[in-house]
Every structure is written in C-alpha cells, then in structure tokens.
C-alpha cells in the first residue's frame, strides 16, 4: 500500500508495537508523543492517516481532534482513535468530534491493520 | 410574600392555654382597678373596713395568680419553649 501514518501516542511500548505491525504491512510510520504540538506535527508531516491516543501529556486527544476537524484541510483526514478508557461516553464523545473510527485498548493487531487499510482505502 | 393560613380551630388544649394567658394579662388590670376603687368610696367608710378590703383584694390577687400560673405551667411544662403559641396569640387576637 505505502501510505504514511502519523501515530500520536506517548506509551513507548505501544508505539513500538503499532509501528511494528504497520511498517511490516508497508506503511511508513511517523510518531509523535506530545499533545501540545500534535496539530503542528500533523501539518508538517501531512500523513494519510492519524492514529490518535486520547490520554496524551499536556493536551487530550479530543482537543487535538477538535482542532483538526475545525481546519478545512483536515476535515476529511481519517483518524483512528485509541483509548484505554473504554467507557461508552468516551466513544460517544469521539464520534461527536468526528473520529473516523474508535478502538479500545487492548486491541488486536489484525483489527488495527484492517481498520487502517479500510480507512485509507476509502 | 404570602402568609401561611392560620389554623382556624385550635386543639382544645391550646385554646384553653391561650385563654389562660389572656387571664394572666388581665390580672394586673383587675388588680389596679380593685386597688383604685376605694378612692371613690364615700368618706364614712370605716378604717378597719378599708384595711380589710385592701388585704382581701391582695389575697385574691395572690390566689388568682397562683391558679393562672399553675394552669399555664400545667398545659405546657416548659413555658420557655412555647414561643409559637405566644406569637400566634397576638396575631390571633388582632384578626378577631
């Protein structure tokens, strides 16, 4: 396939896992760990897809998503949200803010891969 | 601000009690009138009669007050906590 994915996540082991899964499938994976500068990172890297964690240092994933969706340029950018807090209201909030997909940790590797493929393939 | 309606009919006991407190208010008035009455007497009244009269009035006042005080405390053994009856009393009196 060969698209680029920007992974915004702060837990080193999870970054390593997702990077491994996606790059083995042919994706280029960039990572970013700080919530505050995440939107700038998106602007700089212009990825085909974002994997966005909710609990980030300094700024929450919801706020980042909100900013992205407010920007016309990123309105259609596929965003896969990941969260370790699997409550219903988290999912609702994510959908309301315009997340393309929403997954709860721990996820299955296959599912992540499928989702990423599906989102970029659209 | 709307006032809550006053109860029109009180329980028999608190009705009684209010009348006793009316009586307590009346006592000094009755006493004063009784004590001023001799001033209107004719001059020929006897001295000892006058003394008897004053002391009789005095004794009656004491007895009356004792009865009323007993009633008032009987109905409400703690007269110091009965603020409610007292104030509605005034209002009650004003409404009639």
């Amino acid at each position, binding site marked *: 396939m060969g698209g680029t994915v920007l992974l915004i996540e702060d837990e080193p082991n999870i970054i390593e896992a997702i990077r491994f899964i996606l790059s083995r499938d042919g994706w280029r994976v960039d990572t970013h760990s700080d919530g505050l500068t995440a939107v700038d990172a998106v602007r700089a890297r212009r990825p085909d897809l974002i994997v966005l964690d909710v*609990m980030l240092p300094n700024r929450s994933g919801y706020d980042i998503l909100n900013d992205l969706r407010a920007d016309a340029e990123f309105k259609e950018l596929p965003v896969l949200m990941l969260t370790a807090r699997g409550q219903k209201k988290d999912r609702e909030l994510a959908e309301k803010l315009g997340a393309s997909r929403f997954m709860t*940790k721990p996820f299955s590797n296959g599912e992540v891969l499928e989702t990423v493929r599906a989102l970029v393939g659209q | 601000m709307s006032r809550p309606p006053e109860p029109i009919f009180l329980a028999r006991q608190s009705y009684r009690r209010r009348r006793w407190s009316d009586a*307590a208010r009346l006592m000094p008035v009755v006493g004063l009138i009784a004590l001023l009455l001799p001033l209107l007497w004719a001059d020929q009244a006897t001295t000892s009669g006058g003394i008897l009269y004053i002391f009789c009035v005095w004794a009656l006042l*004491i007895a009356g007050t004792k009865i009323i005080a007993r009633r008032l405390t009987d109905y409400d053994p703690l007269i110091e906590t009965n603020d409610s009856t007292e104030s*509605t009393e005034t209002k009650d009196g004003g409404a009639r």
Partner: protein
Amino acid sequence: MLSFNALALISIFYVALLFAVAFWADKRAERGRGGWLRSPWVYTLSLSIYCTAWTFYGAVGNAARSGLEFATIYLGPTLVMVGWWVILRRLVRIGKTQRITSIADMVSSRYGKSNTLGVLVTLLAVAGTTPYIALQLQSVTLSFAVFMDGPANAPEDLAVVALWVAIGLAVFTILFGTRNLDVEERHHGIVMAIAVEAVVKLVALLAVGIFAVFWIGSGPSDMMARIEASSIDVWALQPDRWMTMIFLSAAAFICLPRMFQVIVIENEDERHLSTAAWAFPMYLFLISLFVIPIAVVGLSVMPEGSNPDLFVLTLPLTFDQNALATLAFLGGFSSATSMVIVASIALATMVSNHIVMPIWLSTQSVGATVSGDVRHVVILARRASIVGVLVLGFLYFRLSGGGTALASIGLVAFVGLSQILPALIGGIFWRGATRIGAAAGLATGLALWLWTSLLPSFGEGGVLSAAVFLHGPFGIAMLRPEALFWIEDIDPLVHSVLWSIALNTLAFCVFSLLSFPSPLERLQGATFVNIFRFSDRSRGWTGGAAEAEDLLMMAQRIIGPQVAQGIFESEAAKQGKQGYLPDVTPDFMDRLERELAGSVGAATAHAMVAQITGGASVTVEDLIRVADEAQQILEYSNQLEAKSAEQERTARQLREANEKLLALSVQKDGFLSQISHELRTPMTSIRSFSEILMADEAMGPEDRLRYSRIIHDETKRLTRLLDDLLDLSVLENGQVTLNMGEETIGAVLDRAVAAMEVATGQQDFVIQRPGPGEDASIYTDGDRLSQVFINLIANALKYCENPTPRLTIKVDEAGGRRVVDFLDNGKGIPTDAQTLIFEKFARVSDNHAAGGAGLGLAICREVMTRLGGGIVYLPGQGGAAFRVILPDARAEAA
C-alpha cells in the same frame, strides 16, 4: 437591755453565718449540684431585697404618720408580679437570650448597643442608689443606737458603726460578688445569703406583729377596735398620692438596678417566675400584715415623741423582750445589708462595663487582642466600683448628717430610677423606639428629677435657697422646683412624678418618631419586641474578615481559656470542622459576642469584636441587609418559621449529603476510569507483542528476546499496580494489622535506603543524612514506616531532574511532634499541584519514565494516618520536600 457589745457580737455571728451560707452555696453551685439552690423559692426570697431597712422600719413609721399609704410601696410590686406574663417574662427572656448584665446593659443593648445610653443609665443609677445606700447605713446605725446607753449615743460613735458596716459589706460583696467573672453573671452564694436574710426579716416582722396583736393587744377583733379608736386617720386616702405611689413603686420595682439584678440577671430558670408571681406578693402581703397593728400599738403604748420609725425595735424593748428585740434588730440588719450587697454588685457591673471598660479599651491603642488580661481588668474594675459605691454611700451619709433629710430619700430615689421606665418598656414593646428618643427621654427625666425632686429633698436652704423655692431660679416663677409651669398646691412627690415621667415619656416618643434608627437599632428593636418569636436567633454580624485565631485569643482573655476553647471547639464541631478554629460566620460572631457580653456587657463586647473584625464595625450595607433579613424572618408566622427552620435544616443536611455523594461518585468514576487506563495500557503492549510473537515465525532471536522482555516488564508493572491497589484498599478499609514495636528512626531509614539501593542499583544519587535526632526511638510499625520512606526516596529518584541529584533526609521537631523531612534539589512541585499529589493516580506530569501508577503518595498518606501521624508537602524549600509527621510517641507510650 442588751449591751452594745453583745449586740455587736450577735451581729458579727450573724454575718459569719451569712458568709458560711454564701460560701457553701457557691461551692455547691461550683460542683454543679444546684439542687434546691435553684428552686423557685430561693428566687422568690431573693426578690425580697425590695424590702430594705427603709421599708422594714419605715413602713411602721409611715403607717403611723399617713395610715394605709405605706401599703402602696408593696401594692405596686404586687401588681407587677401579678402581671408577670406581660412584662417580667419578656424581660427575663430578653435578659437570657441577649446575655444582659444589668439594666444599663439592657437599655444600651436594646438601642443598638449604644454606650452613651449605658453611661446615662449608669449615672442615673449611681445618683439614685447612693443616697439609698446611705439610708441603709443610717438605719443600721440608728438601730444600734437604740441599744446604746445615753452617753454612748454620740454621732461620732454612730459614724464608726456605719463605717464598720460599710467595710464589712464591701468585703462580703467583693468576696462573693466578684469571685469569678462568670459567663452567666450569677452569684449563687449571694442569692442564697439573701434568701436566708429574707426569711429572717419576715420572721422578725411577723414575730413583732404577733407580739403586738396577741401579747400587748388581745387578738384581731381587739386590734380592729384599737385601729378605729387610734389617732391615725388611716382611711383618709389622698387619691393623687395613692395612685402616684402605686405607680412609682411598680416602676421602681422594675427599674431599680438591684431589682433588675435579682429578677432578670440572677434568674436561673424562666419557670421560677411563675412561682414568684404569686409567692412574692404573698411575701409582701405577710410583711405588711402587721404594720398597722404595730404602728397603732406603738402610738398608744410608747411615750409621746418617740420615733415611730423605730417602733419595731422599741416596742419589744419597752416590754423587756430582749430576744424579740434582737430578732427585730437582725431583721432590720438583714434588710439593710442585703440591699446594699445586691445594689453595689449591680452598680459595680454597670460602672465597670459601661464606664471603666470602654475607657480602658480606648486607652489600649493596639486593641484588645494583644494587650494584657482583660479578665483581670474587669474584675479589678468591679472591685474598685464596689468600694467606690460604698464609699459614696458612706460619704453621703456623713455629709447629709443623717436624720430626717435622709428619710424622704427613698421615694426620691424611686422617682429618679423610674425615669428608666419609658425607655425600658418602650424598648420591649415598641419597635419604633430609637436611641435618640431614649436618650432624650432619659435626659429630660434626669433633669426634671434633679430639679423637682433630688435638689429640693435637701430642704429649703439645703442646695437650693428658700428664694428659689418661692420665686423660682432667677425669679422665673415658671421654674419653681415644686410648682413647675404654675402647677401649684399639689403634693411635691406627685408633682415631681407627674412632670418628670410625663415629659420623659413625651420626649422619648417625640424624638423616637422624629429620628431614624441605625440598622443595628432596628435589628435589636425587632429582636427585643419579638423576643418570643425570635429567641434563638438574633443576628448582628455578617461577612467579617475576622480571624478565628484573633477572636479566640481575645475570648480567652475575657472568659478564660477553657470556656473560650470550649465555645470555639463546639462551634467548629457544629460546622463539621476539627480543632479549635471554626469559620468566622455571622452566627458565630454573634454567639461569641453574646458570650462576651455576659462578662463585659453588650456594648463593650460589640466594640471588642468590632475591633478584631476589622477596625470599624461592620458596614452599614451589611447591617441593613441583615436587618432586612431579620425583618423578613419576623414577618413569618411562628409555626411556619419553626417548621421552615426544621425544613431548612433537613434540606441543608440533604444537600450536604447529596454533595458528598456526588463528589464520591465523581471520585469513583474518575477512579474507575483511571484504573481502567492503568490496567489497559500495559495489557495493550502485552497483547500486541504476544500476537506479534505468535504470528511471526521468522523473527530473529534478538527481536524475540526484546519483545518477550517488554511483555515481561509490562506484566510486572501490572502486578505492581494490582499490589498497590490492594494495599491501598486494605489501608483505606482499616483492615491492616500493624506490627508495633520500638525502633529508632535511624534504623528504619537505614532499611529504606538499603532497599532502594538494592532495587535500583543507582549510584549517582546522593542521599544526605545529617545525623541528629535519628537515634530517637519511636513506637510504631517499622515495616510500614519504611514503606513510606522507600516511596519518598523512590519519588525523589524518579522525579528529581537535577543533573547531580541529591536527597537530604532530616529528623527534626516541629509543633511538638517529631518529623522526618525529605528534601531534594529538583524543581519541586508546582503550587497548584501540591494539594493533589496525595490523591490516587495524581501524577503531576505524565512522565511514564517513572512507571508508577500514581498510587505511591496516596499509600504513604494512608499508612501515616493508620500509624497516627501524617504526611504533608512542604512548600518553599527549593526542591520537592515532603514532611513525614511521626506518631506522637508520648501518647502512644502512655
């Protein structure tokens, strides 16, 4: 006849007996065993100080001169008592709820805690009472003189007797009247002694009366015949005097400072009033019963020209009844002494609260909070005032030369003190009465009393010359003291009462109508008038910046540390706080002010609290708001109010419970969410890498090893998290068992540091331990304590960003407790986070390098609480600084 010395001896014995009674009653009351000390009978008997020596001896003289008129002095009070439901019940309730200390305080408090009024009433009281005290001294000396033989009857000897009596009374009053500055302002000892004296004087008078009727005469019918035949024209009532005197004695009964003291201040229980309402008139009835018989018999038996004022004594003496005469003497002695004692206490309270304390306070430039012991000053002021009052009384007695000039002073004093009546009665029945009105009324009354009553009482050529009596001052006929405004030929007493009370009342009403009250006055007015609706909530303070600590310091000085701390502690408990410092709410300031008022009077207490709550008083706007609030409350019907208070209380409780539940639920949500996050994060890595390992057969051994290690580490992280959670839950539920033992702090620290070094193997981290204090031994669970230390050291290790990290562990003492401080040289913790760090999962930053779940400090806090100590963050130490407060070793050991 008894010798003078024997009589003196008897008097001394009698006084010693009274001392014993007072002492015993005080002791009993102190031990809280009031028993029958607090019976309505003691209260009733204590009211008998109304019957002074003036009435004890003078009533007979009065009866001999003007017949039945003497009875008016007792009939007025009888009417007041019979009408207890109307006035006295109100006064007593107000006195109790507002913690009134004297009649001056009552007036001052009613009219917006105005000290001017307090001073005015105090001056009036001193002016009216001093001659009265002189009168008592005179009657005691006269009665002594009766027992003296001719040559000893020199004025100088009499003066010596009076002096000794005055000194004795001063000592007695100071001993029992100012023993302590009681919050309740009651004097059990004195009241008891007065009750005994009341019995003595009643028995004495009855005994002499029975002696006159049944011994000298032959029964009631004979007595009636004697009365008819007697020279006294008993039944020629003068209507104007009859009415005036009934009014006057009724007014005086309420307004005399000493009567106010026993009726209102010394009242133990409002219900006693309902007994005294009939029992005291009964006492008066019995006191008066034999007055006319004694007078009639005296007039017929005693030689021409003997003083009828002393018939009570001379009649038994003529018949050689020494025992009876002695009893009568003791009766008179009791009447005089009890009056002087209570009057001087009442006056001393007023003088010290309204004159001495305000002056003293104003000389203390720094304010009452920091300067000396107010309690001490108050007691000293009281004692000095008592001596001062008695000295004044004695001087008056000496200077007036005794004799007839004094005899009329009783009624003069009555007229003077009755001037308080309009302000007092107006104040409790009329909300519109104002401070200006009260002051105008009092001043008018005072002036008219001086001019028409007090000054003329010294007789023509006394203070006022005969010319003034005849033609008025400067020849202005309108202002003749006994014929004011051309009203002539009426009885001087009636004249004086008529003018003074009428113009006093007029001035009071007119100025009240014309002036506008301050908010505080309006508030107090509403409170006083509606006392039965409003008994338990009088408001006065709102939103002050008062520091609870300052208030406590001041209160301790005035009412003593234990009482003050008790009040503060109970208030804090009521507000749901621990310790001694409640929030300074308006309710609390109000309560405190009332408590203080019990010792120093309302106006002074108000001024003191005002001083602390920010220099001036509360702002006018605040007061208006409170006044409006209070008035609104007053408009409610009482039942509704009682109910709404109940409902409000319930609602408040519900609201509080709800808030607590809500907070708990938010906490629980947050907690669950946090746990979820903390558990899922390592599980994500574990699941992901195990799937990678399972799926990828061809992975190199190096990668395989690395991924296995990640899985292993994350599993450990999960286990640690679960351990911490379990630990915390056990601690929080209090199910933890502590292995208590004796150990030195140093040993515990050693273990903690060693454990840390083994666990991390880090070498570049310097731990400094400046030795002193470490060898102190403590009684605690050493393992748990070292768990706390390990946590703190680990924290420093994890978070200290300094390139050359250093941790200092110091054993110290702070606030009487042993503490261990952990100070590192990092950046420390931001101020806004300092309160949060002890909460579960509260990581200051998501620094995952630390790898903890944010439970460490929460566990530390729980452990320290269990151990009876605590842990706090010490701000301003440069780096992060934690202080572990060790359990109180002494308390534990005990």
